[in-house]
């Protein structure tokens, strides 16, 4: 074996160092997010209280209470200290429009978002990655051209409009076609019992999930397609064919595994896009998750709630990126492990 391996620390130590390095990076990003959130919601609006109460009827005492509650008149460094202190206790402030703790609001709506995003991502991963690999392998064929054209078109369709169209066609009914799906929300009032409620929820989940899946599928297809295309001319595929492997085996065992890493990096890069898509879809379908909560907060603007949501969403993205980063050495052994 290579002489350079002599003297290198043993495998588990290298892995731990690698994990440590990535964790440190994630923590730095998280701190940056905290500072950014403070800048965005306390510094940028100038006077946050005025920003929130613009054009709203409010009397002097309420205004004063609000100012005291948010600590807006304190010097900035002490505001930042209070902010960090509260965060470490899990206190995300109080929502202006609901008068409830932000953390509670977020906690209540988190499940719905996870259900939507989780289902859509899994479905899109299965369909998108597989069809992407297939399209690239038989590039130029009918399946490829149709599939890629559809994906590129979907990529150019604003997610909210796709949702509106699906809602109009399948929810409200268009012309002679009846609406088969609900026009919003997560449940129909009056349904009870575990089974019926579950089915009802699934029925409500269909359209929003379909919308989100379609957009993510398009992205995954294009990403996987470009990765496999890049591998298609590799010399080691000729070696595999020379060994007598069938075309499908060459694709499955040699081409696709080499496309995992570039695909994974591109997918991880777009995790933020998936989250944005979720926000929009929830707004269109009134799906009671974090996305629609975000929309409600935007309209006021409910700065404490917005801040809490911003922190939650971006932290989630950082954690997902960290997990993706840690998975790279498993996908491609050439990735440098400390």
């Amino acid at each position, binding site marked *: 074996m*290579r002489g350079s391996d002599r003297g290198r620390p043993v495998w588990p130590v290298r892995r731990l160092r690698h994990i440590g390095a990535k964790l440190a990076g994630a923590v730095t990003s998280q701190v940056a997010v905290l500072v950014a959130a403070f800048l965005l919601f306390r510094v940028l609006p100038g006077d946050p209280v005025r920003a929130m109460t613009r054009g709203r009827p409010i009397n002097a005492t309420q205004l004063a209470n609000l100012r005291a509650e948010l600590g807006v008149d304190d010097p900035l460094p002490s505001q930042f200290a209070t902010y960090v202190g509260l965060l470490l206790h899990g206190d995300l402030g109080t929502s202006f429009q609901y008068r409830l703790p932000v953390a509670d609001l977020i906690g209540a709506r988190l499940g719905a978002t996870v259900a939507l995003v989780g289902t859509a991502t899994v479905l899109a991963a299965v369909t998108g990655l597989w069809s992407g690999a297939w399209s690239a392998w038989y590039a130029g064929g009918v399946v490829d051209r149709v599939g890629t054209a559809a994906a590129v078109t979907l990529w150019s369709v604003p997610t909210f409009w796709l949702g509106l169209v699906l809602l109009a066609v399948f929810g409200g009914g268009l012309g002679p076609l009846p609406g088969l799906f609900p026009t919003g929300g997560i449940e129909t009032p009056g349904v009870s019992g575990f089974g019926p409620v579950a089915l009802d929820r699934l029925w409500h989940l269909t359209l929003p999930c379909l919308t989100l899946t379609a957009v993510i599928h398009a992205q995954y297809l294009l990403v996987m397609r470009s990765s496999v295309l890049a591998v298609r001319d590799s010399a*080691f595929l000729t070696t595999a064919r*020379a060994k007598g492997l069938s075309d499908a085996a060459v694709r499955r*065992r040699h081409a696709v595994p080499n496309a995992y890493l570039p695909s994974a990096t591109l997918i991880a890069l777009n995790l933020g896009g998936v989250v944005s898509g979720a926000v929009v879809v929830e707004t269109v379908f009134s799906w009671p998750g974090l996305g629609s909560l975000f929309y409600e907060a935007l309209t006021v603007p409910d700065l404490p709630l917005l801040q809490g949501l911003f922190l939650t969403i971006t932290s989630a993205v950082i954690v997902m990126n960290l997990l993706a980063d840690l998975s790279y050495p498993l996908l491609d052994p050439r990735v440098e492990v400390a």
Partner: protein
Amino acid sequence: MRPGGAAGATGGAVGTPLNLLEVRGLTVTYLTQTAPLPTLDKVDLDVATGECVGLFGESGAGKTTLALALLRLLPRTATVSGSVHLDGVDVTNTTWGRLRALRWKAASIVFQGATQALNPVQRVGGQIEEPILLHERSSGTIARSRAAALLRQVGLPPAAAGAYPHELSGGERQRALIAMALACDPRLVVADEPTTALDTVRQAQILDLITGLVTGHGRAMLLISHDLRLLSSTCDRIAVMHAGRIVEEGTPAEVCAGGRHPQTRALLTAHTRIRALRHRHRPRPPSPAGHVGVPVLAADDLVVIHPARRGRNVRAVDGVRLDLAAGEIVAVVGESGCGKTTLARALVGMHPPTGGEIRVDGVPLRPTGPWLRAHRRRVQLVLQDPGSALDPRHTVYDAVAEGLRIHRLRPPGGEPAAVAAALVRAGLQAPETFFGRYPQELSGGLRQRVVIAGALILQPRVLIADEPVSSLDAAARADVLTLLLDLRDRSGLAALVISHDLELAWSIADRVAVMYLGRIIEVGPAQQVLGSPAHPYTAALLAAMPQPFTPLAATLDGEPPRTSSLPGGCRFHPRCPVLLTGTADAAGIGHACRTVEPEPLPAVGPAVACHYAAAEHRS
């Protein structure tokens, strides 16, 4: 003389089992976006069981296409006509199922470029087991033990099975590729340039291995190479290929003696021209001890350390003293990884030295901006691959004029005149015709001349050439080397040529310095160093050079250690044949070899860094 066909070992008719491989009238044309590209033209070739046939030709002659066609591995854009009979089966017409069964079992290929031919994300053991599992339908355990046995045969440790290709060195990857090719016990092994880019020592090792495992076990081999000396020392028969046709076939003696076909003669002439260069030009008279005047380029105790990512530094250049006098050509030779490229880059000023000093015309080189700029005017560099050394978006004119523009020079007579003059100096007549051309339109040899012209336009005192001809074919090689000699004779241009090719050093160098692991271990006049080498390493390098008709013998075992983990004592001692055979101990200096590192050599020489050689010299 009809090429191919009846010149086969048995002259059997098509389909006779005695001929393992029979190619008849194979014609391959690639369809491209512009015009169809004919690659093979009615090729006939025979290989009998147990025979070793060599396929010789320049790059682009179609050798790899032929190899791929044997197993019907050409892409769909290739139109194939003619027939290929492998072990009695017509490969070009058989069913997909039979073809797959035939692949790797009847014949396997050792591909060119082991790094690209192996799947980077699959373990080496798995890649060797794959064809075994596919063809033999054996269990996993049997396949694993077979793979382990194969790895042992090629000289790799069993741990290599669990490694990924990038964890092995270049030579180890090549061995793994060979092990993989033998996995299903094929009757024919096609080796496509198995030793390109390897230095002579590793080349000999790999060839030794291949011939031992293939012909030594009764298998047939088709050895493809552009190196005729290599083929003549290993093969029973050689087929010469030119522009897609077999133009000549015969025993090595017949082919090397001059060949009957004009193409063969042209190729051979190019090879021998290089040797003859030595005699065409008056070698520079060797100067007496010590150079007259100040050397135009001098390295004094030069140390260059690469900071490695994992904290251990690589001492690429470790205490080098070298002088270059005006009008002198010095060759620095050594295995890949010995530090010669780093030395070249440090001398040009691209890599700041970690220790020691570099002097040009007696003036020390300082790493700051203005000094470096002035230095650039005096010392220029010519790189290995002219294809990538020229920006494909710049015309020849832009490329040559770039130096003038960078330094904002206004030559008397104008820029175009200076560019034309530089091109002429580089051997390109009618320079104006080249002004608007792009590098891609020129051949390798012409491109290298453009690069040289670009360097010459700044009128340097020294030209440093890093493997200037290794990517060129034989004819272009001779031209560029002649150019260097002309420049030396006519304008007193000093040149430092870096190469792993000893023959090149022999043809143009006045003095030769041999480098090993960052140190110069022997230096002196070319005649002396290459004719009667004193250091065991130099002797091994020379002995490993392929000679016509002589079977190759690996002269050194193993790989040189990494410079980050050097052995104590003389750097070469773990591989030194003098020490390993006990001769050094018998002479009483074995202990010194193991513990004391020889002193760095003086700048001029002749000198050798070897305890044994010094002891012999004294006695």
